[in-house]
């Protein structure tokens, strides 16, 4: 399941609901990216997105993960709008029969979301605002999957 949420979500409650009822899944892996306060330098993060397009691009990344790894199910929830320090920005969770595909798929999803999910991040702090783009090592992390 894929969701872009304009309001805060509870990653553990979402993960519990996702895992419930999959009795054949031996492995549940998950990652939660959280908005950091950078010891006060960040008062909020604003995520612009492109409704419709953003969801369909995340769906493409998700489909690629399902094609590459032996997964039972996947869950991606991504915030949009104004996010406060301590609030989750993204949750990627996978269910699989075995641990390696579950963990690798979460790693893959995060590398691809980081450089491919259509969001535009603006960091808002007491000293002003700045736009955030992926770092060089984010692009490198994504490239590594192409050799595999």
């Amino acid at each position: 399941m894929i969701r872009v949420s304009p309001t805060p979500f509870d990653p553990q409650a979402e993960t519990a609901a996702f895992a419930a009822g999959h009795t054949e899944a031996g492995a549940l892996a998950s990652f939660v990216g959280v908005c950091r306060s950078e010891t006060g330098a960040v008062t909020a993060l604003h995520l612009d997105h492109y409704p419709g397009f953003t969801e369909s691009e995340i769906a493409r990344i998700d489909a690629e993960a399902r094609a590459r790894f032996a997964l039972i199910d996947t869950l991606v929830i991504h915030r949009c709008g104004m996010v406060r320090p301590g609030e989750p920005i993204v949750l990627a969770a996978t269910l699989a029969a075995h641990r390696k595909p579950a963990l690798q798929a979460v790693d893959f999803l995060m590398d691809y979301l980081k450089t491919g999910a259509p969001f535009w991040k603006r960091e808002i702090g007491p000293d002003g605002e700045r736009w955030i783009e992926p770092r060089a090592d984010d692009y490198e992390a994504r490239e590594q999957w192409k050799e595999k």
Partner: protein
Amino acid sequence: MADARILFLGRLAEIAGGRERALPLGGPASLGEIVEALGRGDPELAAALAAPSVRVAVNQQIQRGREGRAGPGDEIAFLPPVSGG
């Protein structure tokens, strides 16, 4: 003349002075012509839209460079580099 709907995402909205704009078009035009029309009298926006890192989507379909065409009623979005996760 009917309008195309222009969307400026991320930092492009700041440069354009708004997230959305209506662009009157007499008929189908190349993306190059549309970019030129949007940048007329606004060199900062013209430079920003010309950057190769900025992708263009027509009706939510990413175009190769500035090769596509669009017309009245279409939605044309300009997307700077994304940053998810």
